[in-house]
């Protein structure tokens, strides 16, 4: 039989991989028709509504007990909300009002729910918008009881089933766990829907928001759910299945490995210890950073503070946000990168009216923007200075390309301190200040910059892009982007050596730092701190613990003598082979 291997893209709602067979959970399709009711029958119609609601109430209460038993009280609160929706006086009185005009109960309910859900659709907050589905869930249950229909249950499930449904309630999800379901896919839903939360807590892989999937699958069809990437593969080929089986096993063993490395230090065989930190963009990620064994936040991207809002964040908001991260990370340090937005982005966010730029990557962004608008910059600096009282916070300026920018930024920092002093607010006087090395001009004069700052952090994404004149997003030239190009290796060596000569520590927070393929080279170059997305930490730590710094240094010396990428590639392979590293 020929496989189609159809790949569909949805929203990753709960991570993990499920390989199994399709089980379609039928949606009860109610055909709601408007019917005129004689005035003598209105009372009867109102009673029909009352009965259906009472029946639904009993169902929901049973549901709640079940949820409580399986998931604990917190999740049972979800059923609480459903019960309150059912008893909501607003809904009930609106529906009754319509019935009283001589319309059947089904249509009356349908009309009220439609109107309410339209209001939800208009909300600009994802969370509240998705609450519409709670309302629809409850309405569906009442509707079913009005019609006197029963939904097909999950009883006919076979082992290895992957459930496909239009939508699932949290209670359905619990039933699925008990039925040993492998995973599920729904047409409706988002990352913050209740069903997604329950799936995450039960560790059931899930993809949601895949409109029309029900019409593309057949009962019993082989299917793979990739809850990590939000993919669904229908009728997968043998190779795809094999690949996913391998990935599934890797995930299981990675999980165990992660546990093993969490509390071990990142130290090489010959005793060189480095700091492994996490890059984050909002306070919620601290937990994941610590869980993966991060010993620092090497890069806090403060841009998040400026997103999805209509006004600039206040000093108080900066303060609250940064101090919560600093407190949770104690005794480890947190490097906050001052806002790295481009003028175009700020204009698009509607925060300020700045004209479009022809070449934003080389335009008014990051420190350049901050120096042009010192008042905006100062608000953030004041927030950081105050938050630093609660933990080990350091400030980092992005996109520095000349010494004068550091001096100017520091002048504004001093003004911020002066203002705080006048306002009588507590702040950290001797806060450490560092810069990102991500513009080639800064990389070349690292020796001069190092004398002006307390620390340096290499931003490889931009540094490589600017040095090689390659836009990684442009598929025609993306292959030219190479972190191991002789020019990049020399540049990195220059940065790290010059910094060390000046007695300054160097970190790296670009993607290169979190890619295990480059760990040995960076260790050999003498990098002091690696900062990456949290999930990479155990992988990088494992490599650091398996080599010696002096061997890595020898390798780097060999690499620096190579004249082509091919030669570099062969040298790397030989080294790994000799060291038994794969």
């Amino acid at each position, binding site marked *: 039989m020929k496989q189609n291997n159809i790949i569909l893209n949805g929203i990753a709602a709960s991570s993990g991989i499920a390989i199994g067979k399709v089980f379609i959970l039928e949606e009860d399709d109610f055909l709601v028709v408007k019917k005129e009711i004689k005035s003598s029958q209105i009372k009867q119609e109102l009673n029909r509504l009352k009965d259906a609601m009472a029946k639904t109430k009993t169902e929901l209460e049973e549901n709640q007990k079940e949820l409580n038993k399986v998931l604990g009280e917190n999740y049972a609160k979800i059923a609480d909300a459903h019960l309150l929706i059912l008893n909501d006086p607003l*809904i009930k009185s609106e529906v009754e009002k319509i019935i009283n005009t001589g319309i059947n109960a089904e249509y009356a309910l349908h009309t009220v729910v439609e109107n309410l859900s339209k209001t939800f659709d208009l909300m600009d907050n994802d969370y509240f918008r998705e609450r519409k589905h709670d309302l629809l869930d409850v309405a569906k249950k009442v509707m079913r009881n009005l019609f006197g229909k029963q939904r097909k249950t999950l009883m006919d499930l076979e082992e290895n089933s992957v459930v496909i449904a239009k939508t699932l309630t949290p209670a359905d999800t619990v039933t699925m766990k008990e039925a040993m379901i492998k995973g599920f896919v729904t047409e409706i839903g988002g990352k913050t829907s209740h069903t997604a939360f329950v799936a995450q807590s039960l560790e059931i892989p899930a993809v949601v928001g895949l409109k029309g999937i029900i019409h593309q699958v057949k009962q019993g069809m082989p299917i793979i759910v990739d809850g990590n990437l939000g993919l669904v593969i229908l009728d997968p080929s043998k190779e795809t299945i094999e690949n996913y089986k391998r990935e599934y096993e890797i995930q299981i063993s990675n999980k165990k490995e992660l546990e093993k490395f969490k509390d071990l230090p990142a130290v090489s065989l010959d005793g060189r210890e480095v700091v492994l930190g996490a890059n984050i963009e909002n306070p919620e990620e601290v937990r994941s950073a610590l869980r993966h064994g991060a010993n620092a936040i090497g890069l806090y991207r403060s841009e998040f503070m400026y997103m999805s809002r209509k006004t600039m964040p206040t000093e108080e908001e900066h303060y609250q946000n940064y101090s919560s991260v600093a407190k949770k990370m104690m005794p480890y340090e947190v490097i906050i990168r001052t806002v790295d937005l481009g003028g175009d982005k700020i204009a698009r966010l509607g925060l300020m009216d700045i004209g479009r730029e022809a070449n934003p990557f080389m335009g008014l962004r990051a420190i350049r923007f901050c120096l042009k608008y010192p008042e905006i910059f100062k608000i953030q600096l004041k927030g950081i200075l105050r938050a630093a009282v609660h933990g080990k916070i350091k400030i980092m300026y992005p996109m520095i390309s000349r010494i004068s920018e550091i001096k100017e930024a520091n002048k504004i920092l001093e003004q911020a301190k002066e203002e705080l002093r006048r306002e009588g607010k507590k702040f950290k006087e001797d806060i450490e200040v560092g810069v990102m090395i991500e513009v080639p001009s800064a990389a070349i004069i690292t020796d001069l910059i190092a004398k002006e700052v307390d620390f340096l952090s290499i931003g490889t994404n931009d540094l490589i892009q600017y040095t090689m004149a390659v836009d990684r997003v442009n598929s025609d030239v993306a292959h030219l982007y190479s972190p191991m190009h002789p020019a990049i290796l020399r540049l990195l060596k220059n940065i790290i050596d010059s910094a060390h000569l000046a007695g300054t520590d160097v970190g790296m927070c670009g993607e290169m730092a979190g890619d295990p393929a480059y760990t040995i080279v960076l260790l050999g170059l003498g990098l002091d701190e690696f900062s990456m997305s949290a999930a990479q930490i155990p992988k990088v730590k494992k490599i650091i613990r398996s080599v010696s710094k002096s061997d890595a240094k020898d390798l780097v010396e060999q690499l620096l003598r190579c004249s082509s990428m091919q030669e570099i590639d062969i040298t790397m392979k030989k080294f790994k082979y000799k060291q038994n590293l794969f």
Partner: protein
Amino acid sequence: MKEKNVKIVNKLGLHARPASLIVQTAMGFSSNIYIIKDEIKADAKSIMGILMLAAACGTELKIQTEGPDEEQALEKMAEVFNNGFGEEI
């Protein structure tokens, strides 16, 4: 009629759980209780009404109570808000 201004202090705002808590608290009083945000007036005994306010952290709201137990109702409701609904602030 009694009124009091309150502010949403919990991080996640008025989501389903706090909304449930508000409704359950309001149900305990015979007074009419309203939560007012700008122009919108929601019945505190209606979870849909509360959710429709879409009040995020930092939002300022007004509580209005009217009836035989309006004083106690106002006090209790304000307390629920000021405690951040027992959630992380």
